[in-house]
């Protein structure tokens, strides 16, 4: 019997991260925290980003070289086409379920 395909789901934090990535194109961990205006906290943001990468919603790479000598290279995140589609579908579904959504 073929396995039933799982419908992708988005938590509030995941949705916020995708919205920020759509708005800013690419960000690193602490930029999410700053841009979210307390919606995301340092510590939890990296766990959420890791989980979203596992789900295929976002992709990441290490910056070429640290901007200044001494620091480790930062990991930069970008939304994948799947992530953008999921966010779009999720937003549309929320709009239909809750008429006030987005007003």
């Amino acid at each position: 019997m073929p396995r039933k395909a799982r419908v992708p789901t988005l938590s509030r934090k995941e949705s916020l991260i995708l919205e920020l990535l759509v708005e800013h194109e690419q960000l690193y961990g602490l930029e999410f925290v700053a841009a979210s205006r307390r919606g995301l906290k340092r510590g939890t943001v990296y766990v959420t980003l890791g989980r979203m990468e596992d789900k295929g919603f976002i992709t990441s790479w290490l910056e070429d070289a640290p901007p200044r000598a001494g620091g480790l290279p930062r990991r930069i995140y970008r939304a994948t086409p799947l992530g953008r589609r999921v966010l779009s579908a999720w937003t549309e579904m929320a709009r239909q379920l809750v008429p006030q959504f987005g007003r």
Partner: protein
Amino acid sequence: MERRVEPTLADWQNEYLDSVRQGRYWTSHWIQFAGMLAVLKVVALIALEQSAYALAHDPDSRWALAKATMIFGAVTGTATAVLAWIPFNAMPVARPIDLQELLLLIPQAFPVAIPIGLTAAILLGLAGRVSTRTIVAALTGAVICSMMSFLTLGWLAPSSNQAYRTQVIGHEIARGDNELTLGELGTRIEQIRAFDPSAPARRLSVLYHTRWALSVTPLVLAMFALVLTGRSGRTTMLNLPATLLVSSGFALLLVWTNNLAFRGSVPPLLGAWLPNLTFATVTAALMPWSLRHRAGIVG
């Protein structure tokens, strides 16, 4: 796990270096503190994620595991505080107590405290309640502890050691051997050997291998404690001295074999791994005795 911890460390380090370059003294110290909390939070969240499923499906052993977890937290916390206090208190010049400085010493104390806490948790918390489920849960916890130790020894402790030195001296200073990350330590050894192939880079090699070996120690001591507690019954009268004996025995053995390696009496690899190998061998030797007892053949 690496994908979650590595960006935390990179952002923390870059944010700290930026604030130091901009001369924002107090901000840089706040960043050190907040960054350390963030790393610990990430590691704890990963551990919770991985253990939540197992615990949810293990109702019979939940109380024993909860007790063991509480003992682990209490003993590890106490041991960390004591081990951080010792070097803080050993400063040659009397200084007022600075909580922030003390916090910066926690990462170097944490990997030594973890095996002590884990041994106590198993010997005192799981005494007489060793089952396949508790063994699996304890070993899962030990693996998580090993990963936490590895991250702390490899990256977190060197970074916080350097922050402590900078804070005590009052300005940026060059990093010492203990302030190099695991990767940097490996690179430094290669550079020394490339410059002079006959150079043993002994001290650095001992430090390098000891960090790897200490990362595995929680798992080794957990297995040793599980074998002991499988035989010891429900009483904790003997398990308390056993905890102290195992922990201090391992620490003394590590100090001795490390000293032998530093002096060149044994190779660095052996000096670092000998305590783990000794305890693993004793565990393997005691295993049949413990299994026979559990099966009810003995005692």
